[in-house]
């Protein structure tokens, strides 16, 4: 009985190991998928739609959304939270895919990783130099709470955090409108519908 238990335990550990995804492998695989889409001979609209699908699978949109809201998230009721997350997802996917779709044939090499905590690993990579642009350093903040399903929470391009920029942008809108969350909702809606 003990032996069976040990075998089962061993198998279980192995299965866990098989499904655990290393953050650097996850990033390389994600950029390869994005790169494949960007080099395909398809319309820009199709590229954007495909990139949105990748983002839905690989980015912790809800986590980024709450981070971007800053301390204002604490004062939202459940109904507002649901509305915000829906608006944020639409805004994020449009903004993210639109930014990426400008790149053609991006070659990204994953160089190293640094475990910050149980929940976060930073993966360092570089976007290779081309005739039009110099080499660009990109760090990826990977949320590793669920080892089987790591998720992107931030991109830090040459030391500039996209999530932090977004957070400060949202804070600015809230502060200009006396903290009224509806003003942020309107801005997000306006961006997504344009």
């Amino acid at each position, binding site marked *: 009985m003990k032996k069976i238990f040990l075998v089962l335990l061993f198998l279980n550990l192995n299965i866990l190991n098989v499904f655990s995804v290393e953050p650097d492998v996850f990033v390389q695989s994600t950029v390869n998928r994005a790169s494949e889409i960007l080099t395909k001979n398809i319309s820009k609209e199709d590229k954007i739609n495909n990139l949105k699908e990748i983002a839905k699978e690989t980015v912790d949109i809800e*986590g980024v959304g709450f981070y971007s809201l800053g301390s204002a*998230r604490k004062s939202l009721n459940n109904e507002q939270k649901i509305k915000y997350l829906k608006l944020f997802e639409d805004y994020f996917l449009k903004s993210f895919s639109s930014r990426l779709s400008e790149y053609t044939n991006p070659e990204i090499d994953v160089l190293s990783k640094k475990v*910050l905590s149980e929940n976060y690993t930073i993966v360092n990579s570089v976007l290779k130099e081309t005739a039009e642009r110099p080499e660009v350093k990109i760090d990826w903040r990977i949320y590793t709470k669920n080892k089987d399903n790591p998720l992107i929470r931030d991109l830090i391009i040459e030391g500039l955090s996209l999530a932090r920029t977004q957070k400060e942008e949202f804070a600015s809108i809230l502060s200009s409108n006396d903290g009224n969350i509806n003003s942020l909702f309107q801005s997000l809606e306006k961006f997504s519908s344009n």
Partner: protein
Amino acid sequence: MKKISLILITTFLLAFNANAGSDGELNLREQPKKVKDCFEGINRATFAFNQSLDKAIIKPLAEGYRNLPDPIQKGTHNFVTNLSSLVTIPNNVLQGDIKLAVINTARLVVNSTVGILGTIDVANGMGFPKYEKEDYGQTLATWGFGPGCYVVLPVLGPSTLRDTTGSFMNILGGDPYYNASMHGNNEFLNENVYMATKAVEGIDFRSNNIESFDNLEVNSIDFYASVKSLYLQDRENKINNIRKGNIEIFYKNEEDWEEIDKN
């Protein structure tokens, strides 16, 4: 008289910065305090003015500059970068980085001579370490001065009271190129040459960032706030010398990220 006024303004700005940015505590290596946008109304108006100026004059010039042959663009970029060493070197010294000051002096000598007035970055090919600009704003920060309020300057763009003070240092004797142009008794340099060099430096920078700015503007819901955030992040990184390997400082503050997992 003009110089006395500038010194008085600089002293005032410095005194103001020390308190405004630090709330009385000057700990540079701690997590940076939030920079206040004390003059937001004026800043937004100046930002709008700068955007109009950019669309009407600067961006078209930058696009035209891009049509110049690559070697000319590269040579111009190298030339203005090499000139910036004249400000970087004294700041390396003021920040106590004597070794880097020596390296940058050697780089300046090699590039200004073998590299034909800095138009060719010979030092880079010789294996010199990657050049990082330093300015008086960064030096003031390493001395413990807080950033003070965020300001948008006409034409020059985003800054802080501390960085603006730092810029004043250039015209108070801190920039040898400015001194030689304005006060030097020579036939090659004068005020117009100095202003033209600064204009070319600005156009060179703008031409390297046309797509980035366009992309940022299109994908921002508050472009002013995005530019402010990126400027302040970039200054923090430069002050903390992130690109020289102090990356652990960058990822030190995890509170915001950890907090959302508790909700």
